[in-house]
């Protein structure tokens, strides 16, 4: 079936540096999401994005986080600067509408901040 691809699958970065996580959503999907899962904890909502704008974000979506999808290319999550507590698996998802019946998740990017 349709897939969400996440690049890279793993990333190790020095604290304070910038990192960009890339997501290639399902081609006809219009709604995009990022979720964060710290080791041993539940997956938690970060942000959703539609029509070039953030619709909703959680308390986890710090000021250092930003999202964009320039010109229909990758949907990206940028963290600048990174902190140790940003180490987690970040999952991208997309859906065709706000009712998430066809929610499709990627395999995640494992980010380690050292």
């Amino acid at each position, binding site marked *: 079936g349709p*897939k969400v691809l996440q690049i890279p699958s793993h990333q190790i970065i020095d604290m304070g540096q910038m990192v960009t996580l890339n997501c290639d959503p399902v081609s006809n999907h219009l709604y995009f999401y990022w979720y964060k899962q710290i080791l041993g904890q*539940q997956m938690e*909502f970060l942000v*959703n994005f539609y029509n070039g704008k953030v619709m909703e974000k959680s308390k986890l979506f710090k000021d250092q986080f930003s999202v964009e999808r320039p010109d229909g290319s990758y949907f990206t999550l940028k963290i600048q600067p990174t902190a140790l507590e940003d180490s987690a698996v970040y999952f991208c998802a997309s859906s065709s509408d706000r*009712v998430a*019946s*066809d929610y499709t*998740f990627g*395999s995640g990017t494992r980010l380690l901040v050292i």
Partner: protein
Amino acid sequence: GDQVEQSPSALSLHEGTGSALRCNFTTTMRAVQWFRKNSRGSLINLFYLASGTKENGRLKSAFDSKERYSTLHIRDAQLEDSGTYFCAAETLGYKLTFGTGTSLLVDP
């Protein structure tokens, strides 16, 4: 905040038997989705329910928004059903709130 309580956290079944997973919600949810994590770590959609029940093969799910729970029943479990199952509730704000997962092991 919104919470999803998933149980059991781990489940062991003999091949051919069945059981149920359950998620309780602390607030009214718009819908529920059940996922299974595959070997690559991707979440595979099993069911999406805004109400009632749905069945697919040996899996059946139910959602009662008023009573704030959802269940996933597995019957005639097979070895390949082993894995981690998650429920995720769709809040009125259209985000998913995940349960903690159920690790299912099916043995011969």
